[in-house]
């Protein structure tokens, strides 16, 4: 009985293979229609004004068509075991030996005795089945329509690019990665700055919420687009000092790149030697004075200033110095007014002298004698605080203020430099 099953098993195996191969073939052939459908859908998406992402869903038509083709191929590939046996005979060149054996096996099933012809046919089929080799993998034929289908799918991709050109922002117009990072850091760090009042914090929070531009959005935009967007958001924002803050943020987009570029140029120049070759061939070497290269801190300072965030006061004498400055200015003005002076020259008298505070006078005298003393440090801090206030008032143009800030950094020494970084 086992021997007889050999024939039916072989035929069943071959039948399964045939079904599988035909289903795959039908599926592959259906890719052609999938490609055509995808092309039509892309055009329809474009006409309907749908986005590129939505239009890309049209490509789903290709695998869908394959699956539909597969199902239909499976359905259409149904054939009787006898028909499969005939095909197998043809495939193996057995001249219907298996088909005959299968026929007699089915015909005489359940009967006790078979005719000798049937028995001979079955025996012959059995012999053939024992020697038959189907191979490990089913024999799949690649349909020509599948090649065409793949070609149409490739054309479809090109079609999508043609109808929806990719949005590639040219390098010179894109917002650089460094600028994006710097701006995000700057925005995040604004609220944590020293000297920010609770009211300012709320204001900054509201402003940042209204600004809210994601990193992904930034990547898609040109620098001009980003500036325009910040401008538009600045107009929409109804907060107090928002307009100047938005303006500063907008300008930061371009300034950061320029500052970085200038920083590199200065650093390169600072490393060059300071040497002169004279006409007689003699070399004279001096010391290059290393220019303080600009840093992103400049932009941060501007943004902070635009938001009304003041630098933290480091000197105890600031208030007194400020008061005295104002007082002396008022005295001078009054004195000049009394005598009717209208010239541009400014004259002062002893009563208008600044820093009448004894402690400050003592510190100042010590500082002049020993510029590295503790007293000198206190005097420097007091004067730097005063300068910060003047810069914050906006009386000094920003470029000059930047140079003065450079000077302050250099005067503050290495410890302060680290803080600024």
């Amino acid at each position, binding site marked *: 009985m086992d021997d007889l099953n050999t024939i039916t098993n072989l035929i069943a195996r071959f039948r399964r293979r045939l079904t599988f191969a035909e289903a795959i073939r039908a599926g592959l052939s259906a890719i052609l229609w999938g490609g055509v459908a995808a092309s039509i859908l892309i055009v329809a998406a474009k006409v309907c004004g749908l986005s590129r992402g939505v239009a890309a869903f049209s490509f789903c038509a290709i695998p869908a068509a394959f699956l539909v083709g597969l199902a239909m191929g499976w359905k259409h590939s149904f054939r009787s075991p006898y028909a499969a046996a005939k095909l197998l005979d043809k495939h193996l060149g057995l001249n219907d030996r298996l088909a005959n054996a299968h026929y007699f096996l089915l015909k005489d099933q359940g009967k006790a005795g078979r005719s000798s012809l049937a028995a001979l046919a079955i025996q012959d089929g059995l012999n053939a089945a024992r020697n038959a080799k189907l191979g490990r993998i089913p024999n799949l034929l690649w349909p020509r329509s599948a090649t065409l289908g793949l070609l149409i799918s490739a054309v479809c991709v090109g079609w999508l690019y043609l109808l929806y050109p990719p*949005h590639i*922002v*040219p390098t*010179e*117009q894109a917002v650089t990665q460094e600028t994006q990072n710097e701006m995000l850091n700057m925005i995040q760090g604004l609220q944590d700055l020293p000297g920010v009042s609770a009211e300012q914090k709320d204001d900054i929070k509201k402003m940042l919420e209204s600004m809210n531009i994601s990193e992904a959005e930034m990547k898609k935009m040109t*620098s*001009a*687009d980003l*500036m*325009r967007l910040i*401008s*538009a958001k600045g107009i929409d924002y109804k907060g107090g000092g928002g307009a100047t803050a938005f303006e500063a943020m*907008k*300008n930061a987009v*371009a300034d950061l*790149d*320029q500052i970085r570029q200038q920083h590199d140029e200065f650093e390169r120049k600072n490393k060059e030697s300071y040497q*002169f070759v*004279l*006409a007689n061939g003699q070399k*004279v*070497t*001096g*010391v*290059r*004075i*290393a*220019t*303080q290269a*600009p840093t992103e801190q400049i932009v941060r300072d501007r943004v902070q200033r635009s938001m009304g965030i003041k630098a933290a006061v480091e000197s105890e004498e600031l208030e007194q110095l400020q008061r005295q*400055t104002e007082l*002396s200015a008022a005295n*001078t003005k009054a004195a000049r007014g009394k005598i009717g002076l209208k010239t*541009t*020259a*400014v004259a*002062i*008298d002893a009563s*208008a*002298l*600044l*820093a009448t505070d004894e402690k400050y006078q003592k510190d*100042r*005298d010590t500082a*002049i004698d020993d*510029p590295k003393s503790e007293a*000198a440090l206190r*005097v420097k801090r007091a004067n730097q605080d*005063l300068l910060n206030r003047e810069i914050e008032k906006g009386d000094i*143009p920003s*470029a*000059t203020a*930047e*140079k*003065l800030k*450079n*000077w302050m*950094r*250099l*005067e503050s020494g290495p410890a302060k430099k680290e803080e600024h970084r």
Partner: protein
Amino acid sequence: MKLMFPSGLWLLLVVAGVVAIYLLRMPRRRFSVADLAPWLQVARAGRRMSSERRTLISLLLQVAIALALVLAFARPYFAGTDGGRLELVLIDLSGSTRACDATKLKVLEGLEKPARTGPSRLDQEKLALQTMIRALNPGDRMTIVGVGARTTIVSSGESEPAILERSVALLEARNESAAFAPACQLAVELAKSEKNVRVTVIDNGSADSNDFAALNNLPDAVGKIRCVRAGKSSENVGIVGFKSRKKLNSDEIESTVTLFSSASQPLKIPVELYLDGKVQRATIAEIAPGATQVVNFSMDYRRGGTLKARLAVQDALQEDNEAVDFLPAPHRMKVALVTREPMDEKAANEYYLARVLRSDTGVEGGFLAAADYQKIAQDKNALKSQFEAVVFDNWAPPANELPPCHALFVNAESPEIPVLVKGVLGDKPLIRKWDEGHPLMNYLNMRDVFLKRAKDLQLTDKSTDVVAELVSSPLILAREIGRRKVAYLGFNPADSDIQFKKELPLFVLNCFEWFKRGIEPVTQIAPGEALSIAVDSAWKSVTVSPPDNGAPQKIDIPPGAENVMFYDTFRPGVYRYRVDTEPTPSRGFAVNFGSQRVSNLSASDAIRIGTIGDRGGISNSRAEAVTLDALVEHQASANLWAYFAAFAVMLLAAENYLFHRRIFF
């Protein structure tokens, strides 16, 4: 009947070709054969006409067809005049003729490029001119005068239409506004020597009627002046002015963009400022209809390059949506700080005066000990070429070693500041007065400055300015010697609290700013304007590279010349130039064109030419508005070619039908 294209009659040679072909097709020579030959009888039986006659008729038909076609091509017409007239045409070639009036106004997003719709005004003007050329009678001549800022004669008394058409095809709009007044005067002069003249003005509506007043001087025989207007009123926003400059006493650049709108409603236009293709500033300008709006941009002066202002908008005239200027690279002044004693690198960079130099990004500083300076001073060329300013701190060289550049003397006397040191004021001298208006005193407040001691000076020269003074002595002095500037500080900052105050860096920074002041190079000119390039005595030539990689032009510098002229500046854009000693161009200038007259695309009133009456109006205008169709006076007969062509086609059809169907033959 006359022909519009008499040259087309050369095609009559085709008729000779047809005749030649028929000669070849003529029946073969006859040979006498026996009349009994039965096949000859059979051949003649179905024939209605002899083959000789048939061929001849066919030839005549073919020749008639060829003649009809050639005549159609030659455009025959019946002339209205006998010819011999001079057509004097003034055609507007100003920048506004580039406008495509059908283009819709819209704001551009991202990388969106502007598009043009419909023909430009110049195309329409050319069409009008070509129509006029086709309407010329034999013996007529045409003089075409191109009108821009400069008047040019495109074609002078030309009678050959083909040549005229070629000239018209080559016409291009110029980056100029149309100056019709001199062109009209030229037209009057040209008309004086002619008997039969007709004047036609083809403009695009940007010109003012007053510009045509000179045409009223044309003789009465000239009659009406035909005025053809190409284009219609359209919406446009343009940049009519763009200039950038360094702010005074500041390292900032201020760019001013002037916009004009000829739109019919208020607009919000994105204005962008680019430096070498990278956007620096952007804003949205609100502009009312028919109004001018100024947009100012301010930015740090960190780099030089091509500055471009751009309106992100699509409108009728796109050329005026961009403007350029050249920004020279910021100059870092070469400054040496000279002290009596040498210092190592660390000490030199930490020195209080060096820290001021380090903080100034507009300075390229170096430190030299007095001994090293004196070595360099022996080589006058090195002294001249290596330093632009020198700061002498508590030490000054002798008169013969002074640098030929700007100098700041700190607590050190020099013959260049003639003062007499009477002694030292050691009892905390008080600063009494300072000149706030002097460039060295910008943003300084000397009121707070405390001095431990200062020099007691007496000024011996009146050409020196006292910038600040003590109660009994000058303290800070300044002097200009030719192009050189010299400043003097009569105290040691180390003996004062000025070293801790902003006044010291501000004073030194102000010194350098003052030193840098001078004649600014020209960075922007209008198209066609000549540029004078200042040259150094060491230069031998200047090579100017035009925009868009045009062929560089070398200008040789004659010995002793202080400047050379460059004239080929017709193309807008940035021109860069380099001297023979430079590998790459570092200097440059921009040619930029902007004009409200060109950007204003709203229609102006019809041209009126005539004597201005007491009330300022023109009662009897000599100008006659003419449409495009009306330019051809023999319009009806000009379509004769179509009849000839139709006749040829009919003959061809008839010949084909009769010959091949053999109805009669």
